[in-house]
């Protein structure tokens, strides 16, 4: 990293670069100007706020775990297997990245909803997904999974297979290679992928509201509460927005300093 030598960038590039930075920072900073600081502590510690924040953190943690369980194997298979049919799959997995969240929600309904493809059978088994916290986790996982998969697959491709080959030649079976060589080598990529997935889950709104509904303590995560409150209690909405920004900054800060993202 420190050995990288620079040839310098054209100076004029600084102007649009700074503009871009300001474009992102300004609205967030402007949010802070809307805060009534005197009420801030009580606003962000109201029952509704704490319940929603707790639900957000719990569901995001659960969806990140689910992303890891499902996404790591998928990323490894995508990066390492040469099978032809994986090409289309690779593109399809990216869909939630480009689909409007509301479309994701409708698609989830079609699959897991009461009258959905799987939902019908789940319903018969007594598993009811709709309007439950499980639905929130499913919605978050659906939209977050590509972040983890893309990030990890990229790391795996960059790392290459050379170390895997050496490990195998030293007598390590495929599972040992995965556990002791492949995954440890891409740990930074894995970590940044997991953090991105967590952050995306934390901010998830559209798919959740469409698929899971909105009920305090069960499905009303912080973004949903903010959306609810923005009309009747704008001060509370702004305060909670800032709370969400703070949590997001902390989460992103967890990996950013190491330059892994």
């Amino acid at each position, binding site marked *: 990293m420190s050995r990288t030598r620079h040839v310098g960038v054209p100076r004029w590039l600084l102007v649009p670069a700074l503009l871009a930075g300001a474009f992102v920072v300004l609205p967030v900073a402007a949010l802070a100007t809307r805060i009534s600081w005197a009420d801030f502590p009580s606003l962000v510690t109201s029952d509704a706020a704490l319940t929603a924040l707790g639900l957000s953190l719990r569901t995001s943690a659960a969806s990140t775990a689910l992303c890891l369980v499902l996404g790591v194997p998928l990323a490894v298979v995508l990066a390492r297997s040469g099978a032809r049919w994986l090409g289309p799959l690779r593109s399809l997995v990216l869909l939630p990245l480009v689909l409007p969240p509301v479309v994701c929600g409708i698609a989830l309904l079609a699959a897991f909803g009461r009258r959905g493809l799987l939902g019908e059978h789940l319903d018969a088994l007594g598993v009811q997904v709709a309007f439950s916290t499980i639905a929130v986790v499913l919605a978050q996982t659906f939209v977050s999974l590509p972040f983890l998969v893309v990030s990890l697959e990229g790391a795996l491709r960059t790392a290459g297979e050379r170390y895997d080959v050496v490990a195998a030649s030293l*007598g390590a079976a495929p599972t040992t290679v995965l556990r002791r060589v492949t995954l440890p080598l891409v740990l930074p990529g894995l970590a940044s992928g997991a953090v991105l997935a967590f952050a995306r889950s934390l901010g998830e709104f559209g798919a959740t509201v469409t698929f899971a509904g909105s009920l305090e303590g069960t499905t009303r995560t912080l973004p949903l509460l903010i959306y609810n409150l923005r009309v009747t209690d704008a001060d509370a909405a702004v305060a909670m927005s800032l709370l969400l920004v703070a949590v997001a900054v902390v989460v992103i800060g967890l990996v950013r300093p190491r330059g892994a993202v």
Partner: protein
Amino acid sequence: MSLVVDVQVADRDVDVSFEVAAGETVALLGPNGAGKSTTLDVVGGLLRPDGGRVVLEGEVLTGAGRWVAPHARRTALLAQDPLLFPHLSVLENVAFGPRSRGAGRAGAREAARRWLAEVGATDLADRRPARLSGGQAQRVAVARALAADPRVLLLDEPMAALDVSVAPVLRQLLRGVLAERTAVVVTHHVLDALLLADRVVVLEGGRVVEQGPAVAVLSRPRSAFAARFAGLNLVAGTATADGLRRPDGTVLHGTAGDPAPATGSDAVAVFRPSAVAVHRVPPGGSPRNVLPVRVDELEPLGDVVRVRAGELAADVTVSAVAELGLAPGQEVSFVVKATEVDLYAR
């Protein structure tokens, strides 16, 4: 035979067959694309050939409906880059093979320490690979490969990535390591082939074009590639105090290379054809070796003409050929300064 290789890979047009005796080291030589790495991959199980077989110590690894996975072959690979696992310490790197083959943590470390001592890298045990020099890393990689207790060691240009100043030390290490081992080494370097291998297999266009004892193939190459590849004059004999005695009794003076030969042991003298001057009448003067030869052929090589005489070659200018009136069958003297001749132990 310890290792029998007889494989065909259609899409790379490779059809190669050779054998390696137990304890023997075979060098695979050949131009880029000749099929050397493909052959090594097939032996290591990284590539499935279209036909043929690989048999190691009587066990069919590939062929006849059998396929042994790479990790179960015990064919350790030593590549051009050391490829030490960056997230493990040197000790853990070397312990990787034993651990993978079922040894306990303590036992694997114990074995790792032994192998580190074997390659003289005990003091590096606790370092991270990022903090090793290229030579140190390759030394550790050797220990790691050996610790896996391979039945055959596959070396893919193991010194190509090293500094010229470091290469001799590692070459020396490998000489010791490979002495009693079954190994296949892919190399581009004439000295490596000469000093590490017992036999040389020359590949060209995916076929074996020549094979035989290293000195014989390299000093009297029959294939076009071996001739170009060798390019050097190699004279085998017995080491004397300051030179080498050829089987015919003549002595070639030179300077000791690394590894230096001990007096009385087998040695080889190496010098470039361009260092050889051709005289019609033997000149006087002591620091020069004068070798009486009979010209076999004249081969134009760009600006120069290569004068071949038996196992020796000299590069002279076109005008010198005219001046000397050189022609096949002529008796002349090849003259080379002692400082141009390197002597190596065999």
